[in-house]
């Protein structure tokens, strides 16, 4: 017990003597939480559109007005050459090209039907999809208006129609920040935990201090615990700072209880730190450790459900996310912050992350060799 205590004391001393780590601990959550949510915006605004109008009729005018009146679209050019419009796409100056054929008004009136052509720049998939969808709905609206104009619809629909009203549960205003900030906070806690713990043991290997530790009678588990606990505490500090920032900057107050968040975070940190320790038992230099943990973190984060919805991933990726601890914490954070889930609601998440923790840490202890 005394050995563990002195190991902890030593570890904390070293952390507090390293100004870089301390600065990082406060700067990283602050900068990431203040900047990332502003940039990682799901709402697509300012879709650049180029309209090729061969018709120049009053209807085409109306349509163009309707499109440019919304703040979703920014008109790049209003031209009568499709080739010119395509060069905008080539130079990435336009995301969408809407072509109105020359007989648009004529066909609309005479044939009750007129085609429109829509070309989408699909390099940015999200923008292309959403922009295309917005435009289709605007055109659909326009279509209805035209019909209204021509035939006074009777007060009651002669044919049955379905009206859809929707309500956004848990995030009524669909504020994406409520959704992103807890997720980014998870990433922060994960990165700090995994990187710091991975680099720490490797640093001892590099400097050679581990040699001196290895000839002492201290036990493996004491050594590993001596590394684990300080970063566990640091993880909580980061989480607390992060929660404070999201309250001050975004007014996010978890609907659920803080106890739930901290209990889950405690178990979660155990598994992330275990992963970091496992990496450090494999790596011999800090570069190796950094690369290896960065590689894993990239995969965990990209397939963690923060930026892309897991439900829309292919089956194999969805299977992978079941083995990704980051996924569970992001889900739990969103559940607790937005929905107010309780410990009972997240019991399965808790259990799975606990299993990860036990597995990673056992592997780390097993693979840590006091002799070669």
């Amino acid at each position: 017990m005394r050995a563990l205590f002195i190991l902890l004391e030593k570890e904390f001393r070293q952390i507090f003597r390293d100004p870089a780590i301390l600065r990082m601990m406060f700067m990283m959550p602050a900068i990431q939480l203040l900047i990332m949510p502003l940039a990682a915006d799901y709402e697509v605004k300012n879709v650049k559109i180029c309209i090729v109008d061969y018709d120049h009729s009053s209807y085409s005018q109306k349509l163009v007005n309707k499109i440019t009146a919304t703040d979703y679209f920014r008109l790049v050019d209003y031209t009568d050459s499709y080739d010119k419009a395509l060069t905008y796409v080539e130079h990435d100056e336009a995301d969408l090209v809407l072509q109105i054929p020359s007989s648009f008004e004529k066909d609309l009136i005479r044939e009750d039907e007129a085609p429109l052509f829509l070309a989408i720049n699909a390099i940015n998939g999200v923008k292309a999809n959403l922009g295309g969808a917005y435009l289709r709905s605007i055109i659909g609206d326009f279509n209805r208006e035209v019909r209204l104009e021509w035939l006074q619809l009777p007060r009651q629909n002669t044919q049955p129609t379905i009206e859809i009203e929707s309500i956004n549960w848990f995030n009524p205003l669909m504020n994406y920040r409520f959704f992103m900030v807890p997720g980014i906070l998870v990433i922060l806690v994960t990165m700090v935990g995994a990187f710091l713990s991975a680099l720490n043991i490797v640093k001892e290997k590099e400097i050679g201090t581990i040699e001196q530790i290895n000839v002492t009678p201290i036990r493996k588990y004491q050594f590993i615990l001596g590394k684990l606990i300080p970063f566990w505490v640091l993880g909580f500090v980061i989480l607390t700072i992060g929660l404070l920032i999201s309250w001050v900057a975004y007014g996010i107050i978890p609907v659920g209880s803080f106890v739930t968040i901290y209990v889950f975070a405690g178990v979660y940190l155990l598994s992330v730190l275990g992963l970091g320790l496992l990496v450090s038992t494999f790596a011999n230099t800090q570069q190796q450790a950094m690369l290896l943990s960065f590689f894993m973190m990239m995969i965990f984060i990209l397939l963690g459900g923060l930026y892309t919805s897991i439900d829309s991933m292919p089956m194999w990726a969805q299977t992978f996310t079941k083995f990704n601890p980051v996924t569970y914490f992001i889900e739990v954070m969103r559940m607790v912050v937005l929905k107010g889930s309780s410990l009972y609601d997240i019991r399965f998440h808790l259990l799975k992350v606990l299993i990860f923790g036990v597995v990673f840490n056992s592997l780390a202890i097993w693979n840590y060799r006091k002799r070669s």
Partner: protein
Amino acid sequence: MKVVSVKNIEKIFKVGKSTVTALRDISFEIEAGELFGLIGPDGSGKTTLFRILTTLMLADKGTASVDGFDVVNDYKQIRKRVGYMPGRFSLYQDLTVEENLSFFATLFNTSIEENYDLIKDIYVQIEKFKTRKAGALSGGMKQKLALSCALIHRPSVLFLDEPTTGVDAVSRKEFWDLLRNLQQQKITILVSTPYMDEASLCDRVALIQDGKILDIDSPKGITKKFNHPLWSAQADNMFKLLTDLKSLVEVNSCYPFGQEHHVTFKDVRESVNDMQARLHKLGHTSIKFKKIEAGIEDCFMDLMKG
């Protein structure tokens, strides 16, 4: 009683596809209370042997015991009773002198106060820097701190891997004086060094080269085995003298030793006057030959050749 006993130890490292034999069939024994020197150039296998004896590495073949305990089966016991000072300074540079010392004391379940008498002589020299970070100490101070840390749990055997490498001459002498004092505290010391001049300070030495032990004896015993006359040679142009001596058929060996060259002749009856005459013909001036006693280094060079 044999405190350290090494029997037929062999260690092979794999480097890519090729293998490097670091230790070949090494055997020796160290008596209790001995100051035993392991003398050999860089890469001769000294550190590997230390790591095996301090239970940090497993040998491929052979057995070894330290203080009566087997290095493989009873490694836990050994770790409690040996002090190890690696060749590279491996204490925490961002902790102070005092913090390092109390850290290692606590890991061995003891305290600075409990064993202060043992380290007193060493520690008083660095005590005035006790609030300074270990990384900010000078080379000699670092070695003294490392020795204090290796001693703080009163080990029965002390392993010092090249403790004087990179340390100035004055500090080196001080360090050996400290080791002599420790010996009186009934601590067995195994020390390795690449410096031949330090060999004479040990009770017994093992000369090691390419993972093989060339000879084990007291420093006097080793030099006594040097059985042919040894001459030191000097002339005005020392570099030319070296190449000329080496090219002469009558010369058995010639090595530069600081200000002079140490020479042995093939024929023990060879006269110095004949030699001087030959060198004179080659254009050398102020040629001086002097008969000298062989040192450890001469013996080492000789053994290496054989």
